[in-house]
């Protein structure tokens, strides 16, 4: 079989793309060339990042890394609720708890969820001096989801939505004064405009690795097994590579003049308390399935 592969990331040197390349190479090798995947990088196929789930479900793409799936599989957003998951350990527990729900939700879209990888925690990068969360008051912070927006508003900041391509100039000129991202993610591109990094983990972002259901079922059982096993192995390797890169980037950004500020003791407890009613109202608004998913995660991480 010859598959079309796609990833939202357009940077060939990032851990995310390296991981996807590794998967295609290893699968081709393991299946003796029976399954070859032609991997296209982000933006080359003119398919928006937020349309990848649909592209895979409709069979336009057979295999993909998908970060922006929340329009198709909104229940996955439970994993990105601010302050619900605060470290690697909690992430592992929470993901394990909701994985069956995700598999089912992707299945409904005609998509097989094979695995995934996770970015390091999204922290707060600003152009102004920040020592704790109260310093967000009155500042314009770019957010990428309504949930992040709620977090910023909770601390009296202004949550701004802005196209990614406009972020660097907007930071330079003060249209926005901060972003939520990972050091090994957006800060790699925008770090030069961001003199301060408050190391406070607001939420995590994860990518799923998915395949079209019909294409997958048309594979021989051996090829299916090879693909599943490779993703199961390389996915966590990619997560680990990101964690290594996060440290490298932190050092690099610090050397370039960025001030890294450790999270203030007590900020996390205070923020979590503020977020609990939001999680609940978020789940209630979205329906019983979401309430069940939230409960699973909260039980898993004891919150």
């Amino acid at each position, binding site marked *: 079989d010859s598959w079309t592969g796609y990833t939202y990331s357009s940077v060939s040197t990032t851990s995310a793309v390296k991981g996807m390349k590794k998967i295609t190479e290893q699968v081709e090798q393991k299946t003796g060339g029976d399954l070859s995947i032609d991997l296209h990088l982000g933006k080359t196929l003119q398919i928006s990042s*937020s349309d990848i789930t*649909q592209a895979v*479900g*409709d069979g336009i793409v057979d295999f993909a890394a998908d970060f*922006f799936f*929340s*329009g*198709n599989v*909104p229940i996955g*957003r439970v994993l990105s609720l601010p302050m619900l998951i605060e470290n690697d350990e909690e992430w592992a527990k929470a993901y394990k708890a909701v994985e069956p729900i995700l598999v089912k939700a992707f299945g409904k*879209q005609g998509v097989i969820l094979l695995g995934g990888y996770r970015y390091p925690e999204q922290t707060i990068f600003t152009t102004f001096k920040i020592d704790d969360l109260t310093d967000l008051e*009155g500042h*314009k912070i770019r957010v990428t*989801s*309504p949930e992040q*927006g709620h977090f910023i508003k909770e601390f009296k900041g*202004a*949550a*701004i*939505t*802005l*196209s990614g391509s406009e972020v660097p100039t907007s930071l330079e000129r003060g*249209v926005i004064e901060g972003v939520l991202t990972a050091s090994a993610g957006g800060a790699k591109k925008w770090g030069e405009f961001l003199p301060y990094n408050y190391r406070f983990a607001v939420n995590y972002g994860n990518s799923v690795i998915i395949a079209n259901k019909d294409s997958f079922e048309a594979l021989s059982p051996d090829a299916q097994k090879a693909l599943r096993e490779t993703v199961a192995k390389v996915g966590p390797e990619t997560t680990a590579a990101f964690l290594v890169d996060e440290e490298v980037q932190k050092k690099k950004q610090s050397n370039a003049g960025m001030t890294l500020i450790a999270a203030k003791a007590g900020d996390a407890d205070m923020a979590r308390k503020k977020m609990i009613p939001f999680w609940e109202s978020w789940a209630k608004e979205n329906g019983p399935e979401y309430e069940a998913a939230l409960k699973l995660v909260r039980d898993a991480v004891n919150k």
Partner: protein
Amino acid sequence: MDIQDNKGLASASPIFDGFAKVIQVATGAVLLALVLLVCTEVLMRSLMNLSLGFAEEVTGYCVVMLTFFGAAMALRSNALFQVSFIYAHIPSRIQIWVHRLFILMALITCLILAWKTQDLMFSSLSRGKFAPTVLRTPLWIPQLIMPIGFSVLSIFLIEKLLLSARKLKDL
């Protein structure tokens, strides 16, 4: 720019004129709304530290509408890009047939795109897909603009076909 003999806003029937008027007013209104939307966002953000939260999203939808409806208006007023140095020098009887061939090819392209963008719209509808923003717009609604846009383009291409039939009779 234009290579047709029917200069400017030639019309095959008042029905087409009325239809074009509706499209023109709608497109102009969208453009005006886009200006208002972006300015409101800029003012609120810089004066009140607030963001509408949907300006970026809705701006994208406005661009989709301006792309297809604007193209339809450009087609009708014979402003769509054309290279005419060979075409202008062929005998008029052949010219009409070449022109008709071109209209037909454009029409086929439009119909394929109308059909495929309609499929996308239904795919989004059946998947319950929405924009992951504060508006949570069901995406089939803005995506509906595309098949409608290509249909409007097709209607104006058909008008051009009718006009060329009239021309052939006059010859």
